[in-house]
């Protein structure tokens, strides 16, 4: 990639020469959205390889799996939020709540009615659960949107945050769990959460999802990559199978949202974001369109909740659905530049890998090479007057440092690059090419 860009740099005419090598790289990558995303993933994989190279292929592939999974789920969430915020300017900071609604509804619908296995459910098939999850997220979104969209953006933010917290507190509540059990015969599991239905991808590899009895397909995959061949564990391979599904969803979301954006609907959204009165005066029913886009976005968030947390074995309201989750997604969108779908995918990947997982991995690696005992507290680390001891403390407590970094990056972006890392990517809002006059039309003069 570096080669390609530097040669491109040399060939470029003087007046188009970008200012620096990084700018050149960005410039080249920008011309191909797919190239940009794949290039970023490649860099991430390279870094993952460097970090875990010594531990063998299984660790390398395992880390890559974790990073890819997180990158893709954040990309999905960012895409859904981008529809609301980037396209229509609706400042929804209740993302976590809508994701929770989606995944919990799915769990309740699909789980076995037998209370012996934890909170009982309706025992319906998974597709019904997914549809129900999206529907409930959409309906709550609708209830929130109908009155709240008349409010100013900062009020909408507070209302959506409040709704997200109300959802979490209900799911957390054992009283609510009891209430549901008494009235509907289903439960949420309260603070302990609930186990998620088996991932169908697992059935692809294993008969009835049982470890040790692979299907023909599983046999094939395990045979090529598995412990006896390349040495990658079966569970990691199955996870990669799920990642393929996630990737398909990312592509589907992307295509869906691009189509929405590149249509008269997207054009109206853009107009509403810029100037509601103009859209209104040109005959667009602004309120209806805002409600529509809010509801679509919430349904997608419900789906993202299912795809993300539904694959995690167990969900619990705290800490999984704290408002912090919403802010992560926001940071992903802001990094990529709100309004751009490519930016959202890229922002999701960059956030999850570089900002979310990166510091932990790097911190752990650095800690491994420091030969010092960790002081029990910050005050002790300072009082020790020993840089090594302090570093040991810092690398052992890398999580808060990472959040501080996130905060600083957020502020920095708002100060310096409000358009995100890709800069201002204004995407065409039409279903047809607008770059030049169609040849059929008369040429002027």
């Amino acid at each position, binding site marked *: 990639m570096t080669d390609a860009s530097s040669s491109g740099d040399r060939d470029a005419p003087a007046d188009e020469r970008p200012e620096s090598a990084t700018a050149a790289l960005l410039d080249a990558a920008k011309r191909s959205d797919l190239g940009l995303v794949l290039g970023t993933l490649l860099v991430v994989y390279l870094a993952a390889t460097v970090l875990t190279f010594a531990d063998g292929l299984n660790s390398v592939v395992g880390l890559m799996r974790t990073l890819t999974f997180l990158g893709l789920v954040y990309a999905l969430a960012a895409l859904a939020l981008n529809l609301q915020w980037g396209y229509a300017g609706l400042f929804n900071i209740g993302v976590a709540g809508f994701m929770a609604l989606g995944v919990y509804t799915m769990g309740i619908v699909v789980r076995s009615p037998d209370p012996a296995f934890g909170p009982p459910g309706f025992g319906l098939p998974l597709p019904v659960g997914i549809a129900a999850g999206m529907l409930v997220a959409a309906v709550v979104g609708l209830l929130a949107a109908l009155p709240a969209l008349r409010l100013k953006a900062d009020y909408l933010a507070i209302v959506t945050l409040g709704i997200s917290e109300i959802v979490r507190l209900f799911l957390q509540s054992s009283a609510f769990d009891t209430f549901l059990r008494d009235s509907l015969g289903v439960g949420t599991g309260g603070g302990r959460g609930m186990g998620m239905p088996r991932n169908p991808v697992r059935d692809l590899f294993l008969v009835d999802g049982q470890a040790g009895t692979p299907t023909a397909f599983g046999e094939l995959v395990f045979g090529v990559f598995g412990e006896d061949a390349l040495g990658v564990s079966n569970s990691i391979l199955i996870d990669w199978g799920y990642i393929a599904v996630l990737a398909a969803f990312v592509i589907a979301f992307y295509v*869906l949202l691009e*189509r*929405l954006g590149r*249509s*008269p*609907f*997207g*054009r*109206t959204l*853009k*107009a509403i974001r*810029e*100037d509601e*009165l*103009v*859209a*209104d*005066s*040109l*005959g*667009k*029913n*602004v309120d*209806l*369109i805002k409600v*529509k*886009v809010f509801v*679509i976005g919430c349904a997608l968030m419900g789906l993202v909740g299912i795809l993300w947390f539904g694959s995690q074995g167990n969900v619990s309201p705290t800490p999984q659905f704290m408002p912090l989750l919403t802010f992560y997604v926001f940071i992903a969108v802001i990094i990529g530049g709100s309004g751009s779908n490519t930016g959202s995918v890229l922002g999701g990947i960059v956030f999850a890998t570089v900002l979310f997982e990166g510091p932990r991995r790097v911190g752990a690696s650095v800690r491994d090479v420091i030969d010092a005992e960790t002081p029990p507290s910050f005050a002790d680390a300072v009082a020790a007057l020993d840089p090594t001891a302090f570093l040991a403390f810092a690398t052992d407590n890398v999580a808060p440092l990472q959040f501080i970094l996130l905060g600083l990056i957020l502020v920095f972006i708002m100060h310096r690059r409000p358009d995100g890392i890709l800069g201002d990517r*204004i995407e*065409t*809002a*039409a*279903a*047809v090419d*607008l*770059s*030049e*006059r*169609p040849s*059929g*039309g008369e040429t*002027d*003069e």
Partner: protein
Amino acid sequence: MSSDVPDASDVADAADEVDAADAITDEPEANDSAVEEAAKHVPSGAPPLRVEGLVKRFGGVTAVDGASFEVEQGSLTGLIGPNGAGKSTTFNCITGVHEPTAGSVYFKGEDVTGLEPYRMARKGLVRTFQIARELSEMTVLENLMLAPKGQLGESAIRAVTPGLRGDVVEQEEAIRERAWETLDFFEIDHLATEHAGNLSGGQRKLLEMARALMTDPEVVLLDEPLAGVNPTLEEKLLDRIHQLREDGYTFLLVEHDMDVIMNNCEHVIVMHQGSVLAEGTGDEIRNDERVIEAYLGEDV
């Protein structure tokens, strides 16, 4: 270049698409506009716009105080008055931005008092803004393509469903063509792919009017279309307004440049302190003592 007015025949294709769209689309309002669309071709005795006893109060301040007037079919009517006479508030009450405290607004004989701006636009009454409100992050072409009524692709489902998107694309092509023709007409076709935020003040005014026309209106309310426009462009804009009038559009024009009003409008309405002070031709108005007093101030 000859007069490439995007008149009814030029936009027939697009208009047909629009009618077809109205029949299918799920929004009830669109059906109204389909009805209106049909009614448009039937000559009706009622004036396109009539305002009766319009009153608008904000708290204790009465901005419009019983204004009544009519705008005739196919006319270019001027609305003038000193600052604070209530012109803008009247405009906002007609277009539905404000709900009048009292009084009525009739569009082609139908009581449309208090309808939201988008419903007024769908009925065929569109307005421009005193300070041009271009959508600066959209290109000039996108600005224009936003406006037409009954776009199939404004339904989210149609916009994304593979089988239905074909119709959307087809209609988009027709709208694009019509947008280009409108740009030609206003001689801003060279700016089509420019972001509207990069336009000069005068060009923005042209864009506003072009965009308003893309809604296929019957009555166009122009709020100071010439403010901040240089003389060359001013002439061009006025010329376009006259051409469009001949094609059957009706204009109500608020403008502070008296010469423009006197030389271009066959009928002038003067507002003062929230109500209509005088009506007549430019010469009648110019020599009306009450008007002179309203403009120069009263003896106190």
